[in-house]
């Protein structure tokens, strides 16, 4: 759902609220209103539509005001007739016309029909003494009988305290055609002056509360992305997972949670991470490439975004003991780090073979106070470490929280982790706005193992279908070599670690071992969000071999002075064969730095 902030009056305040990127800003051109705007409207980003609000004004006034202030929409709050609307539309064919109707306990929807063809939107406001700005809500259940398919704005007394109701409403049938939420007086310190922090908080939580119901490529309320997802877990895990499912959205929406999370991302992780225009790389491939520098985060990768979120979640759930799985050790280190930060016990399961391969990260975890337990079962790698962590959780159902490191596992994990990682694309939006004057790139590229960095980079664009999403998988020695981790190419629908998704398995349904030079992409499954992006064709999937990735990693070192993680090098390798237009704007999520992979680079290039 879109957000409109109405009744803007003061220049500085207009600029401040505009920086929060609402979809619409409303200006009242009705001189009897306390919010009547008498000054000029400052220059605003093109992504924000300026709406002029009028009450029974003459057609001439409306037309000249629209032209004078370069408005993109008019909102008609009086007794304007069908013919009046028709005439405005004729004179200003590119302007959106929003016709307002006031509602109390009942409403005769028959009055809408004649306006259908002459308006772009309806707006439903509370009936009160004044034309708008009465400050209380109407009975939204009335909208269950909405007979039209015309998108509408919901207005009237909406404030922070209505967030939960809005969330409920957005799940209901009545909200099917609700296009936007319109807010005004509940955010004011005086008429026309909006409280920046309050609007900011509302906008963030509004997104959290309503996003899942409006994004078709995002998760649905049953925990599925299309056919994929769900919670295929033994009954022993049900109470733990159910506790999390019932609480995660509620906790994430708490202002104190948001505040603590954002503070830690800023001061501890070092966010926002830069969006860097890679000039020489762009010249080489004759296109415009921006790198989202997740490699500059504390602990060296995007993983920490999720562990910070989950440790705060665990604290609020009253958990005293943290468990995690890790493959290469990056998620283990990120988990050990936040456990040290919060003084919680930390146990990391790691395959016995990986422990031998990743000695520096094992040492890091131990220095941070974690206990590293070798997974001795099965193939003794990431998949088995995950099994062991799940078994630990079965054995310790009350006091323990399991911090899963990717967008995998039973619902709500894939969604929760994606939300914590979505900070990546939230930042890309405003950073790209600053650099390119647009929030949407043409392409977003990210590597996919389980898929958490890709989920974060794609999140804001899942339903913006004019943004091409490119997911890059590890082909290992080649997709058909038998030594590969290209799940979309080789996987079939099945169940792994509690989730229905694509996974690599035998015809008999036994899960097989993947291979990639990159330990972070070496997972036999893929998160259900990505399985759905693949199955629906929403994202483009590309497989990259070890050799291609290593060479692309080395190229970035030479061209940009950045040593990337081998996972991210897979994403970089896309440019070799996949051609882009010179004017394309591409954002590549540089998910991690290459320090941990130094030995691999040394061995591979015989440095």
């Amino acid at each position, binding site marked *: 759902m879109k957000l409109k902030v109405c009744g803007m009056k003061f220049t500085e305040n207009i600029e401040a609220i505009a920086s929060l990127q609402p979809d619409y800003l409303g200006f009242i051109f009705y001189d009897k209103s306390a919010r009547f705007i008498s000054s000029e409207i400052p220059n605003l980003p093109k992504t924000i539509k300026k709406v002029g609000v009028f009450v029974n004004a003459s057609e001439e006034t409306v037309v000249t005001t629209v032209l004078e202030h370069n408005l993109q929409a008019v909102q008609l709050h009086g007794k304007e007739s069908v013919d009046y609307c028709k005439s405005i539309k004729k004179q200003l064919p590119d302007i959106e016309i929003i016709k307002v109707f006031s509602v109390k306990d009942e409403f005769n929807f028959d009055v809408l029909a004649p306006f259908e063809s002459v308006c772009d939107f309806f707006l439903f406001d509370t009936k009160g003494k004044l034309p708008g700005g009465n400050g209380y809500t109407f009975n939204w259940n009335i909208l269950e009988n909405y007979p039209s398919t015309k998108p509408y704005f919901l207005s009237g007394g909406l404030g922070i305290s209505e967030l939960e109701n809005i969330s409920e409403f957005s799940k209901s049938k009545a909200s099917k055609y609700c296009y936007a939420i319109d807010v005004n007086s509940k955010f004011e310190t005086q008429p026309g002056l909006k409280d920046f922090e309050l609007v900011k908080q509302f906008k963030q939580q509004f997104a959290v509360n309503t996003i899942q119901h409006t994004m078709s490529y995002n998760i649905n309320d049953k925990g599925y992305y299309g056919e994929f997802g769900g919670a*295929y877990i033994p009954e022993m895990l049900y109470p733990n997972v159910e506790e999390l499912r019932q609480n995660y959205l509620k906790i994430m929406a708490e202002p104190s949670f948001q505040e603590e999370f954002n503070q830690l991302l800023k001061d501890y992780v070092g966010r926002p991470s830069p969006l860097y225009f890679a000039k020489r790389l762009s010249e080489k491939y004759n296109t415009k490439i921006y790198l989202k520098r997740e490699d500059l985060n504390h602990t060296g990768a995007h993983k920490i975004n999720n562990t910070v979120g989950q440790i705060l979640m665990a604290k609020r759930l009253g958990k005293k003991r943290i468990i995690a799985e890790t493959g290469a050790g990056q998620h283990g280190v990120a988990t050990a780090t936040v456990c040290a930060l919060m003084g919680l016990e930390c146990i990391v399961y790691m395959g016995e073979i990986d422990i031998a391969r990743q000695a520096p990260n094992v040492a890091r975890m131990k220095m941070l106070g974690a206990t590293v337990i070798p997974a001795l079962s099965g193939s003794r790698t990431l998949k088995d470490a995950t099994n062991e962590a799940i078994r630990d959780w079965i054995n310790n159902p009350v006091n323990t929280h399991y911090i899963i490191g990717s967008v995998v596992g039973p619902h709500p994990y894939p969604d929760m982790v994606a939300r914590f990682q979505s900070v990546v694309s939230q930042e890309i939006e405003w950073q790209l706005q600053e650099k390119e004057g647009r929030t949407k790139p043409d392409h977003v590229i990210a590597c996919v193992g389980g898929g958490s960095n890709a989920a974060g980079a794609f999140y804001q664009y899942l339903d913006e279908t004019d943004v091409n999403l490119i997911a890059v998988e590890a082909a290992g020695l080649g997709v058909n070599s038998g030594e590969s981790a290209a799940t979309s190419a080789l996987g079939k629908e099945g169940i792994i670690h509690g989730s229905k998704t694509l996974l690599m398995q035998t015809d008999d349904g036994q899960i097989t071992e993947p291979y990639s030079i990159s330990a972070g992409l070496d997972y036999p499954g893929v998160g259900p969000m990505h399985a759905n992006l693949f199955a629906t064709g929403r994202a483009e999937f590309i497989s990259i071999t070890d050799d291609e990735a290593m060479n692309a990693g080395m190229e970035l070192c030479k061209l940009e002075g950045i040593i990337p993680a081998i996972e991210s090098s897979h994403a970089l390798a896309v440019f070799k064969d996949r051609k882009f237009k010179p004017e394309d704007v591409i954002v590549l999520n540089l998910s991690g730095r290459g320090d941990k992979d130094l030995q691999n680079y040394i061995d591979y290039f015989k440095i």
Partner: protein
Amino acid sequence: MNRINKKLQEDKKLLSIYFTAGYPSLNDTVSIIEDLEKNGVDMIEIGLPFSDPLADGPTIQKSSSQALKNGMTTAKLFEQLKDIRKTVSIPLVIMGYFNPMLQYGVDAFCKKCQEIGIDGLIIPDLPVNEYKAHYKETFEKYGLINVFLITPQTSNERIAFIDNMSNGFIYMVSSASVTGSQSGFGDEQTEYFKRISDMNLNTPQIIGFGINNAETFKQATTYTKGAIIGSAFIKYITENGIDNLGAFTSKIKS
């Protein structure tokens, strides 16, 4: 009437044994089943091995990976069991994880079970809601009883729901743990057994996890209809082979 329901009506405490099909050797399946019946076992859970058995401890994990190495598959198991009803009359249940069944095809899997004379299924990672929404009709079409688990953490409300969804018995997991990790029951478990018993559920309960000798069998069946032994039996055949299963069962029943 399904053999499971008939068995549950008998006036005795039931001893049920789990073993992993294809372990210790690929072709031991039929002989283990026949011997267990001869030694007075009331019901058998035939374990369909899986590469990633999340709810199992090391004993069953190892037997599963060995069985897979031996060459056990879903098709192979059905092949081994095709004439089982010529020699065995006690209830037989297949216990396994959902993914191999999904790959075989749930309908084809259930159909095959009916042909062979399998009476029910225990699928720990197929949650009751998914079952209800997608698979219940298929199971019922082929006359299969689906068995759900409850644990000490399961809420009363959910137990009531599971009771309502069950048509055979409820698999009562004795404690918060994976298989094979308990030794003896304490007060906490006894209280849990009593609490469930006092709920007077419509569906009889059989306890599993942590039963490994006569004492724990007796404790478990004081409040319930029967008990299932898995890891302890696997350990026994690992150490003693499969030639004298009576030595194991007689110890439990003594």
